[in-house]
């Protein structure tokens, strides 16, 4: 236990150390973030003007599909797992993750899975082109041959997620330092515990639905084929039973992150800790009974429309509790606006905008108008970009000094924030307008009347993309040549991770600390 890291590449290939594995997850997810970003920029470049300019429609479809898949499964989820790997053991005073070898296995599946998924771009017939939601029969009867590789890539990345989730649960339930009772755990730990349960519950369902596709495509079964007595709508039900909890998998850890950052820079304890825990659990529970709000226009019985509409609106209650608590934490606080705090405040405001447009979409009759338009695109990018991406960025700025022992440049960090903030709003806010005006999503061409807002969106997208290159530069230059960080880093941050030196030693808490 008293040894340091091994030398060379072997350190990364064979490691069992949660910090090494956390770093690999984070770098991998950043690489995927850039790759998925390039796909997005191809989309925005094509949509800069009406008419077909740069790519042919089939390739455009491949770009929308791969952008979604890479961002969801390659960028956001692994980034949160990376943060969990780094922070959960340190936050609860554990020496490492509960099952360190399985931890490394969970990570190393991902580069293989995404190599296989990305390689479909070069296959005959092209990459998957049926959207990241891969609705049957587009993904079965009419799919390119590469769909088989897509299915198996989903299978193994699902296995990776399940093992990661099991590891996190075992770590949190079994490895807390003496005195670290459940209701003393930092909220990031709480939100990840609940997220891990969501993962174990729904990743197998995703595996089930892609297995059904595989059987329909290659073995002549009739799951999604009405001619044999099945139903394509069945696909949507099973997919969204996975898909809705999945979107909370991508946001609950974000709640944990901002719940750590806002108190630090407000110099006040978090307002309403217990209600935060209960709200998180409520959101997780509700996520299992709202899935068909993605399918209001598919032709459901009225009772179904009503049930899913009201259940969806209920989610606004625990989410409102959270937003209230973050605001109340800042109220009369002694606020300063370091980069992590800027990203966190932007998170609270912009995520709330995304929440409100979600409430609009939850109204079934109104959704008949919004469905499959850019309004939906605007909605889920407002919850995912300022939600998931901003919180991950905030977390990196907040904890990078602890990881690397070096401080980033505040000027550079703030520049990154404002570029990203402006770029994001310029990209996605106009989509509300084009969507309400009726512009359909996933189409490479559009009517002249949408031209202005699309041009503005595309300019914003390239600005946002550029901001992320700056982010990469900031992270590397901090690690290489940032000035030394103190052990506490911030003025008076709460949590066990700030009691260890910066950079955090290779092994922390080999003997558990005593938590009062």
């Amino acid at each position, binding site marked *: *236990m008293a040894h340091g890291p*091994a030398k060379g590449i072997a*350190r990364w*290939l*064979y490691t*069992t150390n949660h910090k090494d594995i956390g770093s690999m997850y984070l770098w991998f997810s950043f690489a995927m973030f850039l790759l998925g970003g390039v796909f997005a920029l191809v989309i925005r470049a094509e949509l800069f003007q009406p008419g077909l300019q740069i790519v042919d429609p089939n390739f455009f479809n491949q770009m929308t599909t791969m952008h979604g898949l890479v961002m969801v499964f390659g960028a956001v989820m692994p980034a949160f797992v990376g943060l969990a790997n780094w922070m959960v053991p340190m936050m609860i005073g554990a*020496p490492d993750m*509960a*099952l*360190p*070898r*399985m931890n490394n*296995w969970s990570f*190393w*599946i991902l580069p*293989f899975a995404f190599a*296989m998924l990305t390689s479909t771009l070069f296959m005959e017939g092209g990459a998957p082109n049926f959207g990241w939601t891969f609705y049957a029969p587009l993904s079965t009867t009419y799919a390119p041959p590469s769909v*088989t*590789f897509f*299915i*198996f*890539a989903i*299978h*193994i990345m699902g*296995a990776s997620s*399940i093992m990661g989730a*099991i590891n996190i*649960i*075992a*770590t949190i*339930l*079994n*490895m807390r330092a003496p005195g670290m009772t459940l209701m003393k755990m930092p909220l990031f730990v709480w939100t990840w515990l609940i997220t891990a349960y969501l993962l*174990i*519950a*729904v*990743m*197998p*369902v995703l595996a*089930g*639905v892609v297995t*059904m596709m595989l*059987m329909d495509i290659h*073995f*002549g*079964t*009739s799951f999604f084929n*009405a*001619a*044999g*007595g*099945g*139903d394509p*709508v*069945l696909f949507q*039900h*099973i997919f969204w*039973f996975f898909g809705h909890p999945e979107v909370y998998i991508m946001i609950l850890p974000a709640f944990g992150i901002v719940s750590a950052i806002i108190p630090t820079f407000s110099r006040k304890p978090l307002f309403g800790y217990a209600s935060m825990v209960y709200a998180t659990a409520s959101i997780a529970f509700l996520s299992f009974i709202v899935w068909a709000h993605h399918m209001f226009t598919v*032709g459901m019985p009225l009772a179904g429309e009503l049930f899913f509409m009201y259940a969806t609106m209920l989610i606004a209650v625990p989410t409102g509790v959270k937003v209230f608590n973050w605001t109340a934490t800042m109220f009369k606080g002694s606020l300063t606006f370091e980069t992590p705090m800027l990203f966190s405040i932007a998170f609270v405001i912009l995520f709330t905008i995304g929440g409100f447009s979600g409430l609009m979409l939850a109204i079934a009759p109104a959704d008949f108008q919004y469905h499959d338009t850019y309004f939906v695109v605007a909605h889920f990018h407002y919850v995912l970009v300022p939600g998931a991406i901003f919180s991950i960025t905030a977390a990196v700025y907040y904890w990078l000094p602890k990881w690397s022992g070096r401080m980033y440049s505040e000027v550079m960090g703030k520049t990154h924030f404002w570029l990203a903030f402006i770029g994001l709003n310029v990209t996605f806010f106009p989509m509300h307008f084009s969507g309400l005006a009726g512009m359909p999503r996933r189409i490479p061409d559009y009517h002249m009347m949408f031209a202005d807002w699309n041009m503005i969106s595309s300019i914003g997208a390239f600005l946002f993309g550029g901001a992320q290159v700056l982010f990469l530069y900031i992270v590397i230059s901090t690690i290489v040549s940032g000035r030394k960080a103190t052990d506490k880093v911030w003025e008076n941050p709460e949590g066990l991770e700030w009691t260890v030196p910066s950079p955090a030693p290779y092994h922390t808490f*080999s003997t558990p600390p005593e938590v009062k």
Partner: protein
Amino acid sequence: MSTHEGSYYVPEQSKLPIWASFGLFLTVFGAAHWLNGNSKGPMIFLAGGLVFAFVLWNWFSAVIGENMSGLAGPQLKRSYVWGMGWFIFSEVMFFAAFFGALFYVRTMALPWLGGEVESTATNEFLWPGFTAEWPLMVTPDMAVNGDRATVLGPDQNLSYPGFGAMFSWLPFWNTVILLSSSVTVHFAHAAIKNNQRRAFNSWLGVTVLLGIIFLIMQALEYHHAYTDLGLTLQSGIYGTTFFMLTGFHGAHVTLGTFMLLVMWLRSVLKGHFKPDDNFGFEAASWYWHFVDVVWVGLFIVVYIFG
């Protein structure tokens, strides 16, 4: 057992995970090529499977070795318990997807296709002449084309034949076998806790045999369905749900039997497991109880109400 709560065993660097990832990747990469008709597919699949099996062998050996040399403290063992428990829960959710598909097809999709719901015109315009029934013998496609079902009557399917014919009905005996095997594996567990090695070996051996008999019976039933009844994976949603649910269950029985067989060999050949230290066996027995519970669900919804 010198390790105490204060020092959790964190293993050294290990080559197992990266090789496990590589083996898993090769396996699915080969399978995908195979399914897409590439002649190199089966070879890649096989190579991947071998790599993966080799890694698992070494991985389990390593874990067993660590336990025997006293590196695994009580806290690490609790991690294994949590790990196995939640792994089984993930399996439950995998089956839930297939059970859910069956319920949806029977309560929603088929009545709509059959025109039983007034507001749906699907039947009238797309599938005239199709009537929803279960087990579904004539698919919508067959109804439109005027094709006869290969299976002639409701007496010629695999569903519940009525109480009179219960004892000549194969699924009934499979249920008896599997339920008994859950009891025998429990006896084995009780035996090892009382340090009765011979009883443990016998009960565990009986359990493995029951598992194998179940699988043979299942194979006979499949053969009967394919050759005598013409019920196949391709014969519409009834065949689809029947074979996928029982097939995945069968695959899990196979894995469970294999796990118990390994435990039996470990006990018989190597004298592994102690009254207070037998989680390897206990985990396998949990898995066995889980496949048993799934079977009870299958028996009720696929066979009795099938």
